[in-house]
């Protein structure tokens, strides 16, 4: 830690500002801080806190409580095997306790604390008002979170976040999207809090920007409609292209802006959303390693504008982003500089595939497939529209005379991120490798066609 690291308040909103909206009612900054302090007092004193809360408010309280205690939150999406196995590399984080909420199960082998029902640690909806003490200041270099993504070998990869790195980004987002103190916006987020996009935009944003975040159900179109109806205008739907398409199909109505991330947003879908909902449709470009990086209004801006303080540069065969409070990070995307200091996205590095906001190396997946016992050779076939079509899935093509599709799938489970599990495993006699051992995509597709 640097002794001169600047401090950033945990929350920088007026005490009576509404930060979160639960189905049971709004939660002010003062009440949120009271809940966070109350939970902090009873957290298990471990170095790391595995935050497994599903409820967005319980998650936020637990995340703030860990920060107040100087504990580092471990964020892994909900893809646990039995007893929470496989969420994070457990042996690398022996000093870990878990925080769970009402419906979550405690992972095996970890001490855990259950957040009070509805997250109201400090006495419930009619709880005592918080003492109007000074807002806690946290050093910007305080380790805040470790976010796990699936690695190319099946072992989750850790991405470390300092308080400064995540706080400055959510503060910047407030400025980028023009949230005004005079007229605070209501965010309804469909993305989970454990994902970087959900964390920044639906959990942390209200701590510093003039927004509140909805903490009730927001998954099915009917949930989202009810949430949009329940919160005051101006409203902002924070979602993904796939979910947006589903909401439009379901005829969800109302007037609201949209923020979309995790995959490129099709211009036609953006146009349909602006027409249906009468608001601006904006996108965030980001990566787990770096958080939110740039934004644009899909229909108006060809180029992306980096968040204040960030610089995005094209480098040989790739791109990188440099941020305050964090090391420069290589991106999985290819960019070209645009005249106004922005950039255009040219696509992803050839090896990188994405689905459901998760990213993987195709080469890594192929290695894992080839390592399955009884698989002599194998490769995944990836649809071009994997990140845009909800029914798109990988297909595994294998040379594995002695092993059934079900047996191969069972072995892949737990080794690769479930979003990349194949929906079909197709047996073939040989893969169409060329003389260099490479698999031309066209030849693979032809083989798959022939296999029916």
């Amino acid at each position, binding site marked *: 830690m640097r002794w001169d690291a600047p401090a950033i308040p945990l929350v920088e909103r007026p005490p009576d500002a509404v930060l979160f909206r639960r*189905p049971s009612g709004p939660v002010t900054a003062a009440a949120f801080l009271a809940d966070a302090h109350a939970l902090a007092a009873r957290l298990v004193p471990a170095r790391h806190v595995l935050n497994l809360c*599903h*409820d*967005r408010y319980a998650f936020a309280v637990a995340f703030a409580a860990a920060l107040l205690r100087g504990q580092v939150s471990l964020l892994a*999406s*909900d*893809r646990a095997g039995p007893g929470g196995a496989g969420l994070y590399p457990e042996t690398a984080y022996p000093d870990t306790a878990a925080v769970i909420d*009402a*419906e979550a199960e405690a992972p095996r082998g970890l001490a855990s604390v259950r957040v009070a029902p509805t997250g109201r640690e400090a006495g419930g909806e009619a709880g005592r008002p918080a003492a109007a003490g000074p807002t806690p200041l946290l050093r910007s270099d305080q380790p805040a979170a470790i976010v796990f993504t699936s690695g190319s070998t099946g072992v989750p990869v850790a991405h470390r976040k300092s308080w400064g790195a995540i706080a400055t980004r959510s503060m910047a987002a407030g400025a980028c999207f023009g949230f005004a103190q005079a007229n605070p916006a209501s965010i309804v987020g*469909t*993305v*989970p809090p*454990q*994902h970087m*996009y*959900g964390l920044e935009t639906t959990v942390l944003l209200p701590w510093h920007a003039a927004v509140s975040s909805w*903490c*009730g*159900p*927001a*998954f*099915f*179109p*009917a*949930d989202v409609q*009810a949430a949009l109806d329940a919160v005051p205008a101006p409203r902002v739907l924070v*979602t*993904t292209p*796939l*979910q947006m398409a*589903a909401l439009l*199909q*379901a005829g969800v109505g109302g007037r609201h802006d949209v923020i979309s*991330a*995790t995959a490129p947003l099709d211009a036609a879908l953006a146009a349909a959303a602006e027409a249906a909902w009468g608001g601006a449709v904006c996108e965030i470009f980001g990566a787990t390693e770096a958080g939110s990086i740039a934004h644009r209004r899909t229909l108006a801006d060809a180029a992306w504008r980096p968040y204040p303080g960030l610089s995005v540069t094209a480098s040989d065969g790739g791109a990188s982003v440099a941020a305050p409070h964090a090391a420069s990070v290589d991106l999985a995307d290819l960019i070209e500089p645009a005249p106004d200091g922005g950039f255009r996205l040219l696509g992803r590095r050839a090896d990188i595939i994405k689905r*459901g*906001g*998760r990213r993987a190396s195709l080469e890594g997946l192929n290695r894992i497939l080839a390592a399955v016992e009884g698989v002599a050779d194998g490769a995944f076939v990836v649809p071009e529209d994997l990140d845009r079509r*909800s*029914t798109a*899935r990988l297909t*595994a093509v294998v040379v594995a005379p002695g092993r*059934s*599709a*079900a047996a*191969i*799938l069972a072995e892949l*489970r737990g080794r690769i991120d*479930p*979003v990349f*599990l*194949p*929906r*079909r*495993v197709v047996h073939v006699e040989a893969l169409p490798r060329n003389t260099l051992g490479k698999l031309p995509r066209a030849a693979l597709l032809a083989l798959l066609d022939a296999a029916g």
Partner: protein
Amino acid sequence: MSKTNNLAAADVAEPMNAMAVPDRQSPQGQSPDGQSGNGQSAAERALAELIVAALQLEVPADAIVPDAPLFGKGLGLDSIDALEMALAISRTYGFELRSDDERNHQIFASLRSLAAHIEANRTR
């Protein structure tokens, strides 16, 4: 939120679990004589056909075992599938799924439980 939060993941979230691959050599539930021995009721069969069509599954509708889990290790659906299913169910049966239903885990447990929920709530 609730039991449904496993569902609430949406597409940036983790799927509820994993996706299964139909094993073409031995479709689930198929009896040795090749007949569908799954004992699907007419309503279950209709729902199975809707699910297979909406999700573009490779598995034949009559091979879906009524009591097997839809998500995770059974049929292997994930949260993106849950969203697609909600759209198809709303179009076909005229009612909306909600994730604040306390019984959502039960409702989505299997073809049989989902079919029963639909029969109880359908408007067409």
